[in-house]
């Protein structure tokens, strides 16, 4: 063997550092921070991706908006006009404090659940970082520091505006002195930061313990469901509003925002007797999760990072899942071959991909939660609103899931097989929506109504729910020119808030108008044929409109596989 100077080369030892010119630890912290915000596998980048600036802006918005809205409540002019006497400011402001606590906890919970797979290093990190001469301890500490920094930053961002604005509003309204005002600000800041931390630590502790204790395959199977549950719980905290539950001996005593309201009052020095029993729960709860979380995090880290390449068990056959898929596949029977293929692809992608499954689970879970509350209401009209609530959220969840890519690089299979000038995929999309609406909304609605108002009326109710839900799906699919799950995520960042407002308004309208229409058909069932007639007329009108647009050359029916940004300069064809 011929080689030059082979044996005199000595192994490289640790290089000498030139006055801190390069710091691997800080670079690693920066890297983990970037990964938390932007990271992940690009082929699976299915989450809403914002830059750090817009993300912090969106997170700060609810707290800031609510603080501004409270100007009206804490207005002495309004008191004077309404002839209202100055109330006890601490009990008067308690619902708002409660709202801010719920907001802080909800946002922390949603973010932790969404970013869970980026908090602990994954296989990508392992393959990139493990071959480098960086001790595992350094990677662990850098990751922990990045996560701690991100959590603190988010807590400050979410609560920053309200920390100053809300206490100042209250202080100026109630003429608090400087010392009291500072104590108010400090109590607000400390309590909300601790509430955010409590939520973050609890979720991390829970999922970290699962990662450390459960077998790897079982953890992978459970993790999306637990995350989905956490997400629903966090959204409920967020939307629970400012109605403080009462009673230390009710189920409310297990509700963490109440504990932190008592902590808030205690920090202010005005702990009310009603809130006093919850104080020790807040302190004990914080202490427990602060101890539990680092241990669970360290164990989970060890399991997920060090053993990342060790998983070798083949997946199980899952007979129940196969049975469910077999049932859902029935909704695709009778379709054209291409639609049938698209239908089966979409259904499997939505039910097997973690992010899609979580999106669907959150939408359906939230719908069921709200729907169950309405279904238990003594008011008949409220009960009628229940299935419309579930249907709207389910269709919205599906619509969002359709925009999330399953694996963009794999869309060549469709591109290679398709003539993109025709639009064959929409039939399959409708079938997917129908296949999930029937078992998750229509069937339960029918069963509940049968028990409530009899078989015939239940049939009418189920028919109306199905018809209106499919009409809603058509509206939501207007202008849709994609095969779902095959395109990169569209950029929502610029009009995200507008979309949210539109969806909230549409949700309220659909729920209430749907229930009223349903009630009307139940009262006058002989008008029921009008519903399919109206739908047929709408379909006919829409087809005519599309045909006219096609004739005029104004309709672009080409399938889209990439999200093309808005054109900066448009050439006018005069």
């Amino acid at each position, binding site marked *: 063997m011929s*080689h030059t100077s082979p*044996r005199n*080369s000595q192994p490289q030892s640790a290089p000498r550092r030139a006055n801190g010119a390069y710091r691997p630890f800080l*670079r690693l912290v920066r890297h983990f921070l970037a990964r938390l915000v*932007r990271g992940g596998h690009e082929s699976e980048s299915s989450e809403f991706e914002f830059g750090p600036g817009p993300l912090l802006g969106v997170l700060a918005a609810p707290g800031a908006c609510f603080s501004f809205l409270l100007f009206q409540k804490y207005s002495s002019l309004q008191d004077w006009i309404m002839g209202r006497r100055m109330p006890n400011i601490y009990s008067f402001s308690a619902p708002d404090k409660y709202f801010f606590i719920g907001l802080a906890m909800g946002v922390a919970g949603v973010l932790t659940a969404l970013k869970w797979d980026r908090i602990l290093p994954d296989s990508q990190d392992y393959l*990139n970082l493990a071959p480098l001469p960086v001790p595992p301890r350094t990677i662990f500490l850098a990751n922990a520091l990045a996560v701690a920094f991100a959590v603190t930053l988010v807590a400050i961002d979410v609560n920053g505006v309200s920390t100053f604005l809300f206490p100042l509003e209250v202080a100026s309204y109630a003429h608090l002195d400087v010392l009291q005002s500072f104590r108010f600000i400090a109590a607000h800041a400390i309590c909300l930061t601790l509430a955010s931390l409590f939520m973050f630590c609890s979720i991390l502790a829970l999922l970290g313990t699962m990662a450390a204790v459960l077998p790897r395959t079982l953890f992978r199977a459970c993790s999306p469901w637990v995350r989905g549950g956490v997400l629903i719980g966090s959204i409920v905290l967020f939307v629970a509003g400012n109605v403080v539950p009462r009673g230390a001996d009710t189920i409310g005593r297990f509700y963490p925002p109440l504990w932190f309201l008592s902590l808030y009052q205690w920090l202010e020095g005005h702990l009310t007797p009603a809130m006093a029993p919850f104080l020790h729960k807040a302190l004990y709860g914080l202490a427990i999760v602060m101890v539990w979380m680092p241990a669970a995090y360290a164990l989970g880290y060890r399991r997920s990072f060090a053993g990342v*390449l060790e998983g*070798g*068990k083949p997946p199980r056959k899952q007979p129940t899942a196969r049975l469910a898929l077999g049932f859902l596949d029935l909704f695709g029977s009778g379709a054209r071959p291409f639609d049938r293929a698209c239908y089966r692809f979409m259904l499997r992608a939505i039910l097997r991909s973690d992010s899609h499954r979580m999106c669907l689970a959150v939408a359906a879970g939230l719908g069921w939660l709200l729907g169950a509350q309405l279904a238990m209401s003594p008011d008949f009209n409220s009960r009628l609103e229940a299935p419309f609530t579930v249907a709207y959220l389910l269709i919205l969840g599906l619509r969002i899931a359709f925009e999330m890519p399953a694996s963009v690089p794999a869309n060549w299979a469709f591109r290679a097989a398709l003539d993109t000038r025709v639009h064959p995929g929409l039939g399959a999309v409708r079938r997917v929506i129908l296949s999930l609406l029937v078992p998750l909304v229509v069937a339960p609605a029918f069963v509940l109504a049968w028990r409530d108002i009899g078989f015939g009326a239940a049939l009418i109710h189920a028919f109306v729910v199905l018809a209106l839900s499919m009409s809603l799906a058509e509206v939501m699919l207007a202008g849709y020119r994609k095969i779902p799950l095959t395109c990169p995520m569209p950029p929502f960042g610029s009009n995200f808030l507008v979309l949210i407002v539109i969806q909230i308004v549409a949700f309220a309208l659909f729920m209430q108008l749907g229930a009223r229409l349903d009630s009307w058909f139940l009262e006058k069932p002989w008008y029921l044929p009008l519903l399919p007639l109206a739908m047929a007329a709408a379909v006919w009108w829409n087809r005519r409109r599309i045909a006219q647009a096609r004739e005029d050359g104004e309709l672009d029916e080409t399938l889209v596989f990439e999200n093309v940004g808005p054109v900066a300069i448009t050439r006018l064809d005069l």
Partner: protein
Amino acid sequence: MFVSPKSRWTQGRELSAGRGVNYRMSAAVLEARNLAKKYGAVAAVRDIAFSIGPGEILGVLGPNGAGKSTIVKMVTGLVEPTAGHVLFRGEPIQQDLTLYKRNLGYVPEQPDLYGFLTGWEYLELVATLREIPPRVMREKASAMLQCYTLYPHRDSPIASYSKGMRQRIVLIAAMMHDPELLVLDEPFSGLDVTSAAVTRELVELLGRRGKAVLFSSPVLEQVEKMCTHLTLLKKGGVVASGPIAEMQAGFAGNSLEAGFMQLTEQVDVAHIAQELAAAVGAPAR
């Protein structure tokens, strides 16, 4: 017919892996002794032994599923062996894994890079974690990016890179710190003809400069052209091992390819191709 796993080349360096072994007896840069890896009940690798001296390029050749990538992962310290040892300069790598990795350049089979980083940012990350001074990094990375025609794309996100571009970035990252040992797991995957030729020439040059190279590939032609030594795997075990020249001579008249096919896959290639053609030509409906 073929060279035994315990050939003259291997036997001379083989040592028992028990306690009290004088690891420093070996002059090899990298040595594997009785390596085995089990995933559950499945034995991915069984009783593997080889060594690579300075200036040697060892090709690990075998069909898919033969255990090449598992060996590479054990050699790079990414996966712990179920049994056996990996020695670097006569010391078990687990004794000081960080020091070992400082001397290791690794090109994985599937480069799963951070798509949100640009090519330059990725190299800067790797260089910083390897504690390469920034000035040195800039000079080396610029030169290597230019050689690999990636310099104009250095500020584009890796997400927009083709497979070949990613592979070239990984090659640069693996060699930027001038490692003593290079472990290349199918490094030509996705590379265009020119880049592959450049890389092959580069590896041979580095070998002549005294670097030890472990090169894993399923393609005999690549291994035959580039390597000085060969270890042939089948179902997780070594079926032949030794210097390429000796192995070529060992097949007495047959080409290395014929010997390779004989040792690994016992299949009737022509018959399978005919069956496939029949399936392709079958009516669609």
